[in-house]
């Protein structure tokens, strides 16, 4: 009897199967370990925050200590404005920079830019805050929404730029050739064909960047400040959810703690809604099937 069932090879076969099972179990455990904190955080935020959520929270201004009720309408709007301002700064620079790196980035300059972008994405957010504080807040003598937007925008640039670059690189050369061979210039090819083809991935990069900055408190403490009042002027201090959470959480009042949890829940939901909405708006009708 040769072949499939000979003694020695049967033993080896069993050993291989055992090793396979063990590795499978280890991999699954690692996945669970990775998901667990995420689930716990979500659970905790919902459990603690849900009780503080009501209509007032979305429509009213904060109340002074001791007075019950009140909301964070100003901080919610402020956060949206700050994210909008940041996108105004971060998206054009990030996307165009990424396109440059992908299409023309075969030189020393591009290599340097790439390196600096990677370094910048690792810089602690508080340092970016200090930088904008020195560049904007000090000369204008006031904390402002503008400064906050600039700080968040600077933080967006590396993420958006590098993901745009990677995704633009992935667009098949044959699409570029098709466009060029029809007499299109390089820039038109990039904007009408390549970016359209890479849209899905670029949007993912943007969402990652937005999600990251939407939850930042540290740079905003130094730039946008905060305010218990309505503030939609970008040359004035602007309240935001993360800063509000921070302010409320470090106070010794149970009311405020509840408000802080509710704000955390709103912040998480806001990021989720933004992601889903952006995906829906830019969903690819003309997905490439390969």
């Amino acid at each position, binding site marked *: 009897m040769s072949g499939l069932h000979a003694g020695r090879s049967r033993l080896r076969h069993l050993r291989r199967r055992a090793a396979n099972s063990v590795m499978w179990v280890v991999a699954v455990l690692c996945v669970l370990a990775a998901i667990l904190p995420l689930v716990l955080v979500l659970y905790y935020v919902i459990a603690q925050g849900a009780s503080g959520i009501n209509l007032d929270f979305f429509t009213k201004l904060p109340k002074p200590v001791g007075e019950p009720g009140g909301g964070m309408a100003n901080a919610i709007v402020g956060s949206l404005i700050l994210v909008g301002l940041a996108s105004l700064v971060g998206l054009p620079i990030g996307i165009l920079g990424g396109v440059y790196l992908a299409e023309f980035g*075969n030189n020393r300059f591009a290599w340097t830019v790439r390196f600096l972008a990677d370094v910048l994405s690792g810089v602690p957010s508080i340092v970016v805050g200090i930088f904008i504080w020195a560049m904007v807040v000090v000369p204008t003598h006031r904390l402002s929404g503008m400064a906050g937007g600039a700080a968040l925008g600077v933080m967006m640039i590396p993420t958006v730029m590098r993901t745009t670059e990677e995704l633009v690189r992935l667009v*098949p050369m*044959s*699409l*570029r*050739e*098709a*466009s*060029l*061979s*029809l*007499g*299109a*210039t390089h820039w*038109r090819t990039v904007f*009408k*064909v390549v970016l*359209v*083809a890479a849209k899905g991935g670029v949007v993912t990069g943007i969402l990652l960047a937005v999600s990251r900055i939407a939850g930042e408190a540290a740079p905003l403490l130094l730039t946008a400040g905060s305010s218990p009042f309505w503030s939609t002027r970008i040359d004035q201090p602007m309240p935001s959810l993360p800063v509000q959470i921070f302010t409320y959480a470090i106070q010794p009042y149970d009311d405020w703690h509840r408000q802080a949890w509710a704000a955390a829940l709103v912040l998480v939901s806001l990021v989720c809604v933004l992601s889903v909405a952006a995906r829906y708006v830019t969903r*690819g*009708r*003309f*997905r*490439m*099937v390969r």
Partner: protein
Amino acid sequence: MISTSIAVQPGSLRQQGDHTAKVEVEHLNFYYGRFQALKDVNLTIRERQITALIGPSGCGKSTFLRALNRMNEIIEGARTEGQVRLDGEDIYDRDVDVVALRRRVGMVFQRPNPFPMSVFENVAYAPRIHGLARGPDLEDLVEESLKRAALWDEVKDKLKGSAFALSGGQQQRLCIGRVLAVDPEVVLMDEPCSALDPLSTLRIEELMHELQQKYTIVIVTHNMQQAARVSQETGFFLHGELVEFGPSTTIFTDPTDKRTEDYVTGRFG
């Protein structure tokens, strides 16, 4: 330039003399960095004919095709020497606008490569770029181009649908329609059927016969039967050299060069 060609039934053999030279290539050398991909190629492509280029993989036939609309330029380290004249004008002259050149010399690629847009937008892309038409005129132009590409009847109800929803053969005809929309004079085809099934291939070949009445076509193909079926003249490339060029009937039945004979009889390649 006066063309002396007369309307002839597609597929019938025609005398070379009836057709004026459309593209004249003289002493063409091409290099990828240090590697010389084309060695002193000389040949004349005649108007309103189908010229086929055959040869084994890596023999330079695609490189030669791409030299005819300067698509080789987008490759880094590429260098071209010699002359390629379109209607007597050197396309490698410094004053030549490559955008205008590519409008006159269109290209269809090996794999169908429609843009990630609707069927309509695919065809409308190039006319928009060149400002040829807009509004209702553009719609007419798209319809006309798709009709010429023998695709209109199949897609007229799904113009707004994704181009990727079409079959491979339809996609390739869409790519042909996309080229025809700018009304080029020469259409270069780089193994246009290699990714298609036999039936789609047949449709494309029939289409080529029709297009031949209006356009000059140069086709690179691995398929010698295809070259014999569709073309009036054939060139055989080997190691970057044009070994033999002449009427397709001669190349396939009575070649002069031993290497050509070995190749067309299937002894190598």
